[in-house]
């Protein structure tokens, strides 16, 4: 996954700054959620347990991190391990035994895809606010032109052209550098 600067944020969390903890959770929440739901296909209750347990462990582990900038990688690793454990536990409980266990290659391929998505989201974060928001609302939140238009105070017809323009701007971020291969 792409490494975002986290040193200062983790230090603030460690010092008891609740706003910093909120920012850290919000920064990693989509990835942890996607690992549980998309990569490992967990049902909502199991996925939420993995999500909450990941952040509970992260919170408890703050004082023992060797590299604060590695918090994102650490969170990803913990969530993958917890999700896989949950998949295996469910497979053991199932009368069909391991029939419910996804093929090993499938989560790996999905995880690679999520890492690519993280890289794209990191590039999006470098766009100006109007672009970042319209792309997130349309593609990630699946909002309609009408909903986006109402939220941003622009005509629905303008939303479509803005999305098109913003995707082009996002693509320009990748020109001259490697495409999102993401792992670091």
């Amino acid at each position, binding site marked *: 996954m792409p490494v975002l600067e986290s040193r200062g944020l983790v230090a603030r969390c460690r010092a008891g700054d609740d706003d910093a903890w909120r920012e850290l959770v919000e920064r990693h929440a*989509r990835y942890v959620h996607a690992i549980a739901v998309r990569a490992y296909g967990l049902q909502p209750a199991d996925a*939420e347990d993995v999500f909450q347990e990941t952040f509970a462990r992260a919170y408890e582990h703050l004082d023992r991190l060797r590299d604060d900038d590695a918090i994102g990688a650490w969170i990803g690793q913990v969530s993958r391990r917890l999700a896989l454990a949950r998949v295996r536990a469910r497979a053991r409980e199932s009368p069909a035994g391991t029939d419910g266990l996804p093929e090993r290659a499938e989560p790996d391929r999905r995880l690679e895809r999520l890492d690519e998505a993280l890289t794209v989201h990191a590039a999006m974060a470098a766009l100006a606010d109007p672009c970042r928001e319209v792309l997130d609302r349309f*593609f990630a939140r699946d909002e309609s032109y009408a909903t986006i238009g109402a939220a941003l105070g622009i005509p629905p017809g303008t939303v479509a052209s803005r999305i098109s323009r913003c995707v082009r701007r996002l*693509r320009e971020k990748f020109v001259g550098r490697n495409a999102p291969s993401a792992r670091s």
Partner: protein
Amino acid sequence: MDSGTVPSETELAELISELPPAPAGWVRAAVELPRLRRELDRLAALCMADADVRAHTLADLERALRDAGLRATPVAVRLARERLQ
């Protein structure tokens, strides 16, 4: 997506959609962890001082968490049990 090539606009759109927001309630519960820890410290002090309070609290941890304005997720209940027992 091939490494070393510039992704198409379609690929970018698909990759953006791979990371939708996590459910708001999940995020809220995770954000509350520092407050959960402080609340458990407070409850632990009360439980230490009064055996009846301890028994009452341990008998229904979910309610104790909800009374404190916290979301009683299974993980929060486990943390409470570990802290208070």
